[in-house]
């Protein structure tokens, strides 16, 4: 099969069972080349399972998936060459230096020694950690480790970068730095498939988002288009112990409606969390 005949990622009726637990239930979707695609859902919704199947870490129970035209099961070696993978858990060799971690990755992807060394310098400069090349990984902060993992995943120049909850556990300022880095990577032409349960992350970064709940794909679309299906403004009304949210096209409509309620209320812009709740009845976070 020739690469680029298909979308960057093509998932067809993908299912995954862990014993009796159905982690994925017939998910189908396509991610276009150069796109930043966010896969949004609460913990346990099947986001990581999807990434693990696409990167060869898990086998599907049913269905197929292609990355850059290569079947992830039948042509796994070629498929893996297309992918860079940054898992949710930090998985660097703590005892080795930053440089050594990257070098081993290059060897795993069969790159030439000279090329690996050039790429390491370039990528560490790219992520702003060139001065830490010789530092043992255990001496780095969580945010630095995350950036090293992104650099490692980019070392072999993958066409698609998989980021599984790239900013989980990081403080807001570091999170913003990682977002800027992700945007830069996309602008350099890499397709990015990102899982997150942070609404603002998906809204800020993604060209399109997919909602996943309990292993089922709920919807796929551009963030703004999904938001506009509800309206642009939300009115949160507190009624006793319950909170009700109403949606309006304009802020004025929302405010006009708000004054009719005796309890406390707030008017705010609609976000993807609202869309998710309206579709699934559950929260993302």
């Amino acid at each position, binding site marked *: 099969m020739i690469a680029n005949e298909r979308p960057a990622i093509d998932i067809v009726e993908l299912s995954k069972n*862990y014993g009796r637990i159905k982690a994925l239930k017939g998910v189908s979707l396509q991610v276009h080349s150069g796109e930043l695609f966010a896969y949004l859902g609460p913990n346990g919704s099947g986001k990581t399972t999807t990434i*693990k199947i696409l*990167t*060869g*870490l*898990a*086998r599907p129970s049913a269905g197929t998936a292609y990355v850059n035209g290569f079947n992830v099961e039948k042509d*796994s*070696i*070629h498929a*893996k*060459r297309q*992918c860079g*993978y940054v*898992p949710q*858990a*930090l*998985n*660097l*060799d*703590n*005892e*080795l230096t930053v440089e*050594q971690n990257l070098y*081993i*990755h290059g*060897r*795993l*992807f*069969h790159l030439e020694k000279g090329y690996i060394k050039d790429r390491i310098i370039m990528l560490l400069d790219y992520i702003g950690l060139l001065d830490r090349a010789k530092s043992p990984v255990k001496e780095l902060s969580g945010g630095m480790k995350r950036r090293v993992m992104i650099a490692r995943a980019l070392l072999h120049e993958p066409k698609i970068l998989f980021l599984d909850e790239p900013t989980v556990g990081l403080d807001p300022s570091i999170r913003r730095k990682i977002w800027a880095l992700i945007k830069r990577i996309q602008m350099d032409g890499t397709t990015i498939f990102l899982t997150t349960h942070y609404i603002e992350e998906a809204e800020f970064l993604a060209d399109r988002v997919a909602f996943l709940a309990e292993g089922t794909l709920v919807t796929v679309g551009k963030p703004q288009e999904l938001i506009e299906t509800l309206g642009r403004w939300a009115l949160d009304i507190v009624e006793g112990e319950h909170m009700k949210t109403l949606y309006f096209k304009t802020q004025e409509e929302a405010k006009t409606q708000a004054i009719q309620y005796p309890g406390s209320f707030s008017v705010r812009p609609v976000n993807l969390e609202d869309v998710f709740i309206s579709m699934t009845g559950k929260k993302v976070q």
Partner: protein
Amino acid sequence: MKGWTAIYYREILILRKRFFRQLASMSVMPLLYMIAFGYGIGESVTVDGVTYMNFMIPGLLAMNSMVQGFGIAAEINIARFYWRVFEEFQAAPIRHIAYVTGEVLFGITRAVMGALIIIILSWLFGVRFSYNGYFWLALILNAFLFASLAVCLAMVVKSHADQALLVNFVITPMGFLGGTFFPLERMPLIIKEVLSYLPITHAAIAIRQALFGYGPALFSYGVLLVLGIICFVIAVWCVDRARE
């Protein structure tokens, strides 16, 4: 097979970081055996016409190559469950055989290191052997077998605790019962028969015959090679099954 060098290189880099700690750790067990059995039992006991120390050293080399070869299981488990580096190998475009080859070669490297330590220590204790090619072949085959077994079991276990159980119930008894520290001829017939099926028994026979200059124990080499290949093939299969 591309990619095995990366796996092996990573293990060597980590070994280099811990080299002196590792060296000290590898020296403790043989040193204790030599003091306890060498000085403790000393020259007063002879087994099969040689001093007990001379009888024991080949057995110690067999046992140590088994322990060091199998020792990679703990490292693999740490990489898998604690550091999660194993995911990095799973996501890399390398075949399972390349992963197993890299790890098994590291197991053999550890076994050779352990053997060199014993050779030096036994020399200090006044024991002299001719460490010929037959000896190294037996030692490497034994390490190949147990390193392959280590990869199999490291892929099967679900936690560090399971790993410790395997060592307690499989490796330690085999180390003591496989003709390493006493001649099997002294065992009751039925026990002798059972113990003759253990690979460590054949490693001890092959190493002892090589060091005593009796010529190669061809049958034992054959057993170690065949079992080693079987374990290696199963290890490749187990790595594939380790995918979720």
